[in-house]
């Protein structure tokens, strides 16, 4: 049985399609913003913090509590990630140059803290790992 097409129905369908498409594009764009780079902080192998890095982001600063009063303060900007302050004995992490590209990391051995930049879906890093 053929139903006569109503202009109203068509409008509703079209509207639905457009809405779904816009929604999906939005979700997709959020996932890939700024190349999809993130900074991940791990304490003793467990991820304790992560934050996306994208152009125009507000600078972020946070404190990693490594237990027994041990801490590292990490500062994150689009231009680079660094350990701003820490009370570890060797201060190697604080003296490290800031990191910016996927695959780079700063390690604080005494506090067992790793600050790492990871690539998102869109971005393949230059190298898979570094022999250091």
């Amino acid at each position, binding site marked *: 049985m053929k139903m006569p097409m109503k202009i109203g*129905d068509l409008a509703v*369908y079209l509207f639905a399609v457009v809405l779904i498409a816009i929604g999906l594009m939005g979700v997709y764009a959020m996932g890939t913003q700024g190349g999809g780079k993130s900074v991940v902080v791990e304490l003793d*192998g467990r991820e304790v913090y992560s934050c996306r890095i994208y152009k125009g982001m507000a600078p972020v600063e946070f404190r990693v509590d490594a237990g027994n009063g041990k801490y590292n303060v990490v500062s994150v900007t689009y231009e680079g990630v660094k350990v701003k302050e820490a009370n570890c004995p060797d201060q190697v992490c604080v003296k490290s140059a800031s990191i910016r590209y996927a695959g780079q990391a700063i390690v604080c051995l005494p506090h067992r803290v790793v600050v790492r930049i990871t690539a998102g879906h869109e971005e393949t890093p230059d*190298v898979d790992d570094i022999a250091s």
Partner: protein
Amino acid sequence: MRRYRRICALTVAIFLLGAVLHGCTGTAGFREYRKDIFALNTWVNIRIYAGKNGPDILDKAIKRIEEIENRMSVTIQDSDVSRINSNAGKQAVKVHDDTFAVIKKALEYAQISNGAFDITIYPIVKLWGITSEHPRVPADTEIQDKLKLVDYRNVVLDEEKKTVYLKEAGMGIDLGAIAKGYAADEVVRILKEEGVAHALINMGGNVIAMGGKPDGQPWKIGVQDPRSEGAQRHIAIIEVTDGSVVSSGDYERYMVDVYKKTGKRYHHIFDPSTGYPANSGLMATTVVASNSIDADALSTTVFIMGAEKGLEMVEGLEGVDAMAITFDKKIYASKGLKEKLVVTDKEYELQP
């Protein structure tokens, strides 16, 4: 109704497209599992591609690393190595098979390198305490005194009884320049047994590639910039399928305070012929080999021997490649590596 169906189909299509774009590919439920631990006095990272039992496989590998650490660490009181050291000049000590194998390998490298690689360096390591909380530059008389105890020919192995004996009282061994390589090879062995085909392991900078990447490409391993002041940054890339890349250098562990004041870098790799940090004109070396134990031991050896002698030795070994970076940022590489090495930092110059 037909139009309704069409919209449904379109919606499904958009979803599928989205899924594909998001990289939900992966072969038959295999995905990446990764784990970071602190062991062997360093940071260890293991990445494997496996099915649902990925976490169990990782746990198995980590257990083995911890077992090796408990046997070979010089800072663990009842380890094989500590017992060998505390019985120096007294008696032979029965050790685990793996400890015996590593010491045997270390003595082989001592012979090949004419003593440049020497695990009996421990009294010198302890004297300087570069990696301890209170490092210091000792007096030359102290160094000469301890240097008398450094001689790999005074390590006596008994293959039958699996014992190790240090002839002189006061002697000591340190497997720090080779145990990580052994542990990495053991991890690879376990992963293979568990059917893992693709993995990338990083043991405090020693990188071991198992297979290639899941997409069939070789792993791309960066060579650390020796003057990045602590950050991980590469100056060159080596592509590896099934093999290990290990770097050694004066940048890894050194007396930062003395360096800031005097510009002199007292680092952790000692020359067994002088008792001082090796000073062969190099900032760093990188060795590529199929087994990580070889790459680990040889990166230290080449660093102590220098570019010319070190690379000459490597050319004589099968399946091993090496490169050395001098203070003026020149890269010297073995024949096999020259073709493979891609230098990515313009400041560094690969020599023909």
